[in-house]
């Protein structure tokens, strides 16, 4: 499967087929999630209506972390096999993951103010998420810091791999340290601890937003592949003109 998709031409062909149906499915899931999240689910007995922030905050946080894991895996593939598609996938994921890390921090602050009485605390979960955002920004900066894209690929891949160490810290910070941020409610040893009325919109938003992430990454990869082909064509034309 990986070998099949690692061919840029096959990837482009498959991507063209997948984008439209996946976009429709993602939009439907998100619309259903918004309906249940804003209209059909009850307020929490302690948090009141601020629980509705969870339906966008949690998917954004998952995407920021899982996006980074996927980016780190691409970094590893690029370092080991030097496959250009891994570099393109890494570059495509970085801005999308950075946006979701930023949204996680902003929506978390908007929940924290009414619930904790503070926009920000130097809590282990919040701080590790901020560090994750910094890693995303650093990968983007390093990938684009050189005259040619190829020169920035290896340093960016190495940095993406180094940053992977922060992902388990983000996930387990609430268990390892005494934090203000609540512990995990979905992925925990004792099973899901959320009422089904609130779990439904959360799962719908998680599914819809994860699909959305995949679609945007595919679109960005399509754009970058086409841009690289254009650049290669320009170089070939210039070489031909120079030789003539």
């Amino acid at each position, binding site marked *: 499967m990986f070998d099949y998709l690692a061919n840029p*031409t096959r990837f*482009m*062909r498959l991507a*063209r087929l997948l984008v439209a149906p996946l976009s429709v499915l993602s939009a439907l899931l998100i619309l259903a999630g*918004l309906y249940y999240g*804003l*209209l059909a689910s009850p*307020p929490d007995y302690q948090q*009141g*209506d*601020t629980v*509705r*922030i969870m339906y*966008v*905050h949690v998917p*954004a946080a998952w995407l920021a972390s899982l996006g980074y894991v996927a980016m780190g895996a691409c970094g590893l593939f690029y370092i080991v096999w030097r496959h250009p598609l891994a570099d393109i996938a890494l570059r495509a994921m970085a*801005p*999308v993951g950075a*946006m979701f890390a*930023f*949204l996680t921090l*902003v*929506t978390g602050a*908007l*929940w924290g*103010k*009414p619930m904790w009485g503070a926009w920000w605390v130097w809590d282990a979960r919040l701080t590790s998420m901020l560090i994750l955002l910094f890693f995303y920004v650093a990968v983007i900066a390093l990938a684009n810091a050189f005259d040619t894209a190829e020169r920035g690929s290896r340093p960016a891949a190495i940095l993406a791999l180094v940053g992977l160490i922060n992902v388990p810290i983000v996930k387990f910070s609430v268990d390892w340290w005494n934090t203000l941020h609540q512990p995990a409610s979905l992925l925990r040893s004792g099973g899901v601890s959320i009422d089904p009325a609130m779990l439904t919109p959360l799962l719908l938003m998680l599914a819809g*937003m994860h699909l*959305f992430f995949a*679609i*945007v990454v595919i*679109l*960005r990869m*399509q*754009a*970058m592949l*086409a*841009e690289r*082909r*254009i650049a290669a*064509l320009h170089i070939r034309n210039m070489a031909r003109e120079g030789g003539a």
Partner: protein
Amino acid sequence: MSVFLEMGGYGGFIWPCYILTLGGMVWIAVSSWRRAKAAAARLAELGMEKG
């Protein structure tokens, strides 16, 4: 309607979360789609086979 918008007194915190998240998602999706479309058009213009 106003009860819905007030969100139990937390509307000022809840609505910005949804507006920022959905706004950010629309922005990155549209910009990525436009970039892919423009690159594909340029590639076609240069006479290369798509895909």
